[in-house]
């Protein structure tokens, strides 16, 4: 199965589809829902693909939780599966992990079809389920040892404790650990079989900012160890901070996919230059004459849209040239929140469970 991008003849947006070379598919544009027929061209991918998902669907009675999604995750990358609560993230990841049975579609992990060969691939993957709590009366070391002994291939527990900065807590009972430490142990558990793919489902939910950053560091280290990380999250900062590749899921469908830069470029707003306390009435006119898009707020701040950050100097030199005074400037770039807002009309953090 390979990835193929097509431009919609109606809305001219680019959508990504997956299929085998030569395969003809009837597809729907993810932006305007125009239907059409496409032919997948190109050659089959090499062995650099860790996860392949094609046309995955999960239906519960009258609810379509996951609606015909396809994507690929390359080996060694952190793939963030981003979406609000109830968007279908966990359902998707649990189908990939064979915890749930898909209604339709196919999943390959490290080239193995999970429908028939999941048991063969178990030794090579590891998961941290959402809201995971391990056995309360095991110490940290015992927890790691217990799960390690379930596998044939075992990583060195001491090395994991060291790498996860858990050495000082190894004799503590799991139930006595803080939330951040528990999550760190959860991630550490994902390494006991030295897996090739690590699935982390909402690993930082419920953690305070400090604990969240600690877990981020641990996840970043996984990439450094060459692991493929499938990260499910509803925190855009998490995806921005960690991910090599991001897929945004909304109402069971992938609505955007790419690197952070690709998503911001494609769907983000322009960078905004905030000029604070600029009381001159001429300032807006001067900048507009120079072709800038300028908005003013009620508190005498000016907001100037700029294509790229280098334009800041140009704006400021115009103001200086006209002897226009202001208190300071602030540059705000686009982010995934804006991307999501633009794509769905809703804020990522405010979406409720269906």
């Amino acid at each position, binding site marked *: 199965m390979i990835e193929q991008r097509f431009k919609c003849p109606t809305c001219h947006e680019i959508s990504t589809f997956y299929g085998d070379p030569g395969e003809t598919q009837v597809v729907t544009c993810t932006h305007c829902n125009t239907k059409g027929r496409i032919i997948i061209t190109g050659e089959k991918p090499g062995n650099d693909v860790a996860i392949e998902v094609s046309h995955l669907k999960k239906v519960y009675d009258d609810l379509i939780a996951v609606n015909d999604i396809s994507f690929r995750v390359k080996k060694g990358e952190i793939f963030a599966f981003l979406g609000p609560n109830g968007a279908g993230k966990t359902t998707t990841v649990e189908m990939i*992990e064979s915890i749930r049975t898909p209604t339709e579609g196919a999943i390959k992990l490290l080239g193995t079809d999970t429908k028939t060969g999941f048991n063969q691939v178990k030794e090579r993957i590891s998961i941290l389920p959402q809201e995971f709590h391990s056995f309360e*009366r095991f110490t940290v070391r015992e927890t790691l040892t217990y*799960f390690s002994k379930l596998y044939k291939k075992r990583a060195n527990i001491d090395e994991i404790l060291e790498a996860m900065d858990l050495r000082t807590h190894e004799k503590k009972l799991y139930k006595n650990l803080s939330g951040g430490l528990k999550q760190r142990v959860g991630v550490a558990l994902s390494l006991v079989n030295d897996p090739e793919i690590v699935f982390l489902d909402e690993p930082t939910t419920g953690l305070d900012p400090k604990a969240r950053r600690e877990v981020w560091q641990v996840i970043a280290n996984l990439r450094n160890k060459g692991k493929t990380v499938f990260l499910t999250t509803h925190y855009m900062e998490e995806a921005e901070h960690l991910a090599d590749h991001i897929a945004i899921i909304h109402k069971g469908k992938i609505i955007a996919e790419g690197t952070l830069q690709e998503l911001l470029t494609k769907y983000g707003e322009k960078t905004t230059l905030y000029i604070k306390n600029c009381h001159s009435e001429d300032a807006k006119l001067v900048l507009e004459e120079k072709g800038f898009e300028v908005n003013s707020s009620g508190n005498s701040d000016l907001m100037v849209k700029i294509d790229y950050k280098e334009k800041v100097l140009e704006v400021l030199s115009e103001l200086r040239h006209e002897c226009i005074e202001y208190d300071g400037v602030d540059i705000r770039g686009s982010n995934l929140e804006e991307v999501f807002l633009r794509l769905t009309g809703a804020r990522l953090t405010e979406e409720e469970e269906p």
Partner: protein
Amino acid sequence: MNLRIVGVDFLYSIRSWSRSRGTVFWSLLFPVMLILLFGAIFSGMGDSKYTIYVQDLDNTDMSQSLVTILNKTGILTIKNVSTNQPITDYIKENNIKNLIVIPKGYENDVTNSFVDPDMKVNLTYYYDPTETQTNQILRSVISSVLEGLNMQLTQGKTIIGLSEQSTITENFGFIDFFIPGMIGFTIMQQSIYGSIERNTKFRKDGILRKLLTTPITRSEWILAKMLFMLFLAFISTSVAIGVGVLAFGIKVNINLLTIVIVIATSFLFSGIGMIIGRFVKEEETADMAAGAISFPMMFLAGTFFAVESMPAIIQIISRALPLFYVNEGLRNAMIYMNQTEALINGGIVLIFAAIFFIAGVILTKWKED
């Protein structure tokens, strides 16, 4: 089946269990406390019993009149025993607790006593010495009836007396009745609540989802947990017997049937726990459901008091409960040495165990819908 993995899970289960003071308390010390408490309070006492069997060997107007008077007390339910039955065999085969034999010649002897002042006639009262409270009540009722008859016939002279004979050759007390009941009760509690923890808390905590993606299979995991439950069951049984022997001097016979019933009990109630865990997702609700099942069963199945002391309708319910057969089976196998009865009870427990455990295993799922 990977026995190495089964062994790992089994050993870690024991380690985890031993670290929970609460679990150890409820598994071991609580039953010990109950045994000591109930043993101290009720040793030498028994339970009330209202059903009494009567074998009328005389079968005359006067003997039938005596049966009618006993029946009219309103306290006793009379059940007649055929005169052809050898009484000791009948008692043993039917596990009879209370029985009166009206001797042949009863009417003749009573009539003769009017002319012969030395003539007396004795009814024989067979009783279960483990149910001393019941015996006291019945003895009192029968004595009152006989006193009334004596008064009516001879103005106070005792011509109809009562001789007593134990239904069992050995002298058993309440504690002999109670210890097997506590063993059954403890295994039931451990197995039901253990299963529920594994099937609700572990599910909520994501442990089952995690295990699903590791090489351990569901059957290996269930086998490991059942080995652990059997370990607990035998520990509890040993502790209960130890306390009974050391503190109350009971005499216990450990035999193959006892071991089979203990194993079957563990499987039976683990199966019930699995079924509850499958349908009740919330941990707290599952605990309540387990309580709703085990608590009434504890009282109705003859753990603390003999089922025979309960109203007839309750006795019917009691005999539908698996714990009743566990308790009776253990008593017959361990204490009363009534191996025929124990075999029947054990067989019923095995059938219950097979049904509930197989249903539980089928219903236990790691996968989500």
